[in-house]
Each structure stands twice: as C-alpha cells, then as structure tokens.
C-alpha cells in the first residue's frame, strides 16, 4: 500500500522501520517534519526522541549513542550541518556508525529557506577538519529518500562510518506516494567495540586522539582503505535514455528530475541527450561515468549551486570531453526549458567543433 507523504516524513518513517531508535536534533527549516515525526512516532516504538539545545549538542548526543552501540540518526539543514561539522569529524575519526540527513537550503551564511544543492563540497569532501569522508547518498524522489535512509543504517554499521543523506528542500517538502513494504530492519550487526559497560571483558574506548604522529598516520590510512572499499562497492547512478546518448547530462536529486524532462524535450527535437544521475555522491560514480566517455560528445552538469559537482565530473572526464555547467542557486530551481537551451547550445557547439 502506498501512502502520500512528504520526503521528510518518509525519511523519518523509513528510519524507524530500519531500526533507528534514537534521534537527536534541533529545529531548522526546511526539515522540521523529520524531528516532528520522530517526536510523535519514535516513542511508540520504544525509542528516544530528544530535542537538543543546539546542533552541536545534537551531533554529540549522536556520537555518544553511536558509541554506545545504538542505531541513531540526526537531521538538519545547511547552516545546522555546518554547526555539526566538528562532531561529524569526530564521529568519522572514531569510526562510529550513524545516519545524518541534510535537507539543503540556500547559502552561504543564513542564506534562505528555499531548496539548494550548494552543500555538495561540504558533504563529499569531508566537511569538517581532517582527512575523512562520509558515505553520501542523494535521493531524487520521496520513495528513494525512504529506501536510501533505511539502507544508510546498514551501510553505516558495515563501514563503521557516518552516512549522509543529501537531499534538497524539494525532496524534503514535496509529497509523493511512497511504499514501505520493502523496508525491513537491516540485520543488526554485532558491535563488540561499543561502550556498554565492561562486564566480564576489557574496557572499550571510543576515541579519536592519536598523539603519536605515526599512529595517527596509520589511522588515516586505515580510514582511507575503508573509503577505497566504498569506491569499489558503493558507486551508484541511474542512467536515463543513455543507450545512444551523445549529449550527457549529469545531475542528482531534484535537479535530475528536471533534467530528465529536459532530456525528453531534447529527444523530441532529435537531439541525442541522456542523463547520468549520481545516487552515491561519495563515492562519486566514476566508473559509470567513465563507461559513457566513448559515446559522449560532451557533458553538462546541472546543479542548484554555482557549480560544485561539476568539479568531480571534470576530474572523471579528465579533459577527454568538454564539460559544461548550468546552475541556478540561492533557492532558485532551474526549469527544463533553461536546461534544454543549454543542451541545444552544447549540441551546436559540438557540431561546430566536428
């Protein structure tokens, strides 16, 4: 059975179904429906919802609960995620599993409350201090927001790493039919490292301090072996009308939905357009994009930012094809017509080149 829900509510419901029993957060628009849903429904499942005094406190409560072995989540929006970054760095360093949701709004600073994708760099390059990465998943529908949230808990446990759901304000706020039938609590993983009281065993320590530089270097190398495994196993993207596509759009989240419409419009005009929609942003779906190089004449990154993901796209394309960018920002959502114009321009340019 499908229910009509906002993305925010679907994320919260999926988390509960996936076995999340602890949720700590601070109110911020446009994601307030997540804490509100948790406040109403988590206690029904024997869980704990706690409204923290700040984003900083919330993420540190997550640290404590994750270190204590719990399935735990927090959610926020851009400025709030910036505040959490110190704690996220500690969580990544201490290798604690948790799920963090960022329903992005326009920035920088207090910015605005309309949808945006301008936290891409912060999300995929670490965001806080030090060498670390989050596993970052970007839903493009309410159904996918639910599915990825549930899966995020399993991935977090498996990698002992924070997983970030990077959604934009539209995904959070729009209503779509969603089914939770396929969402089951992922198999609970044994956490022998958790602080649960040292009864009959040696004490467990959750820590990110390594005063010996060689030990710290080894710790960083260990973290990066984990990120390499993520790159090996977790690259995900959806291909849309890519069979014979030469003009390849790359967009994620809401922007990908609009880009699909633009691809359809281009196809009607006889232009061979297609879309690669990254679902994992870290790891960036390098292999999938590389597999399109031979057929592509040019790439167009479309984002609700001044151009962030386009830099990763350029790294992958590595100068072998032109990479163009189109973006609207500050809470302005690009239209399919605007994107179509860019596709036509790109087609013209490439014809000119050939």
């Amino acid at each position, binding site marked *: 059975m499908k229910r009509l829900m906002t993305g925010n509510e679907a994320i919260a419901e999926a988390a509960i179904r996936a076995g999340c029993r*602890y949720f*700590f957060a601070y109110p911020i628009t446009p994601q307030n429906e997540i804490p509100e849903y948790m406040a109403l429904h988590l206690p029904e499942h024997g869980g*704990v919802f*706690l409204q*923290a*005094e*700040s984003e*900083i*406190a*919330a993420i*540190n*409560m*997550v*640290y*404590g*609960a*994750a*270190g*204590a*072995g*719990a399935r*735990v989540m927090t959610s926020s929006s851009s400025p709030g995620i910036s505040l959490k970054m*110190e*704690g996220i760095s*500690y969580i990544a360093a*201490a290798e604690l599993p948790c799920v963090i949701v960022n329903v992005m709004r326009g920035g920088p600073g207090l910015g605005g409350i309309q949808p945006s994708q301008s936290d891409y760099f912060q999300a995929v390059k670490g965001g806080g201090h030090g060498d670390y990465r989050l596993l970052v998943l970007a839903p493009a529908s309410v159904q996918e927001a639910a599915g990825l949230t549930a899966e995020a808990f399993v991935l977090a446990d498996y990698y002992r790493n924070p997983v970030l759901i990077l959604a934009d304000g539209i995904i959070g706020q729009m209503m779509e039919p969603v089914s939770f039938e396929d969402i089951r609590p992922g198999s609970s993983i044994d956490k022998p490292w958790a*602080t*649960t*009281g*040292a*009864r*009959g065993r040696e*004490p*467990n*320590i*959750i*820590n*990110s*301090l390594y005063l010996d530089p060689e030990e710290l270097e080894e710790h960083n190398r260990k973290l990066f072996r984990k990120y390499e495994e993520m790159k090996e196993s977790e690259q995900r993207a959806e291909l849309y009308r890519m069979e014979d596509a030469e003009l390849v759009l790359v967009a994620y989240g809401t922007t990908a939905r609009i880009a699909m419409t633009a691809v359809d419009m281009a196809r009607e005009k006889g232009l061979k357009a297609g879309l690669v929609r990254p679902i994992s942003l870290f790891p960036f779906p390098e292999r999938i994009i590389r597999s399109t190089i031979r057929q592509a004449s040019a790439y167009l990154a479309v984002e609700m930012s001044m151009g962030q993901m386009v830099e990763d796209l350029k790294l992958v394309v590595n100068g072998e094809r032109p990479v163009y960018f189109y973006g609207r920002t500050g809470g302005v959502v690009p239209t399919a017509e605007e994107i179509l114009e860019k596709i036509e321009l790109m087609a013209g340019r490439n014809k000119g080149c050939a």
Partner: protein
Amino acid sequence: MRLIKGYPASLTEKEFHYCPGCTHGLAHRLVAEVLDELEIREEAIGVASVGCSVLAYEYFNCDMQQAAHGRAPAVATGIKRVHPDKVVFTYQGDGDLASIGLAELIHAANRGEKITVIFINNAIYGMTGGQMAPTTLPGQRTSTSPAGRSSSETGFPLKIAELLSTVEGVAYLARVSLHDPAHIVEGKRAIKTAFEYQLAGRGFSLVEILAACPTNWGMTPLKALEFVRDEMLKVYPKGVYRRLEK
C-alpha cells in the same frame, strides 16, 4: 596483617602523565575508589573531555568515550539515553566545562540527565600552557592575562556551583576542595553521594573540585595547595549547593 586499602580496580595501571602536585591524580583516585565501593566499575561508562585530563580514558578501568571540547555532557546524554541502566559520568576541567561547554552543561543539568559530572576547577587552562579561564581569579596572572585578570575587561570568576543551584533538573550539587586530608575525605564523600543520586535515578549530579595547578600557577605544589585554601576557597566557597531530599 590485614590490607585495608589497595590499588583501586577502577584505575588502570598506566602511570599518570600529570605534573607533580597536580590535583587530577587525586581526583582520579577518588572517583575510582567510589566506583569500586559502589561496585559499579563494570556498569560505568565515562566520558573524557579536552584538557589535561584528555587521557582519562587511559586511566579509568571502565568503558570510556573521549568527547570533543566541551561536549562531554551531550555525549553522556547520548550514552545514558541508550543505556539508562548504566552509570554514566563525565570528567571535565574548567576550560572545557565552564567556557566552551557551558551550553551543553546547563542543558544536560536542566533536563535532569541522570549523569554525574566531575568538574575540576583549577582556574586556568592547563594543557595549552596556562591561559586565562572563565574561572581565573581577579588579578591572577596567566599567559593571556599577563598583568593579572582585569575584571573590567575580562569579567569575573564564573561560579558554576552557584549558577547551577537554581536549575531544577539538578539533584545533587556540591563544591569541594582537595587541599588537605580532611577535605579529601569530604570530597570523596561528595563524589560518592553524586553517584548515589545517579544510581537512585534522581537526576543530574555534579561535584566541583577546587584543584591546584602548580606548573601553570608558577608555584611549588605546597604553595599551590595554600593558594587553593587561602584564595580559591574565598571566591569559591565549598558546600552542598543543591540536594533533593530523599
């Protein structure tokens, strides 16, 4: 012959890194003895903070988490909410608790989190080399108040026990000093009471411990203890500041 006092099971055998005359070693020992006496070592989850006691996780022989600067009460909240049947404590200095972590402290106290906070107040930042703290006494020289703390420029000693005494979630709140044996006995009793309040599920408990930092105060260990007795206790009177009746 009968052994009446041994090495606490709640301390590891790791040698402290603390300076001669520092109160941390004593405070660690008292907390460990209390964990032993209440037989809660295997139920305890401690939270180390940032400052001289950052390595507390190497000294307490129980499960430990190391928290970001000032965030120990939030981390302890997360742990306690997951394991309400365990004993959760933080061990924090005055830079950590009274400066950068004041918000986390007050709100954990106000929620009545059933945790115990051991607060070491030595009126200075120790680990970073003796900078001024919110708890530094008026006129006290530190590396960032070289002419002595000027209250007109940098404020007054922040009195945590007094500040928390009006917070309703607080079940037990005391300030003690460890400058002589009689006070050490009194201090240990307060620490034990704080843990007992947690065990009884009464609410938030905190013991503020006045402590000496001979290295950063530029004093001999003995002079530093006299400074605690003659100067700190005047500004920070000892006593029980809040105690819910049984």
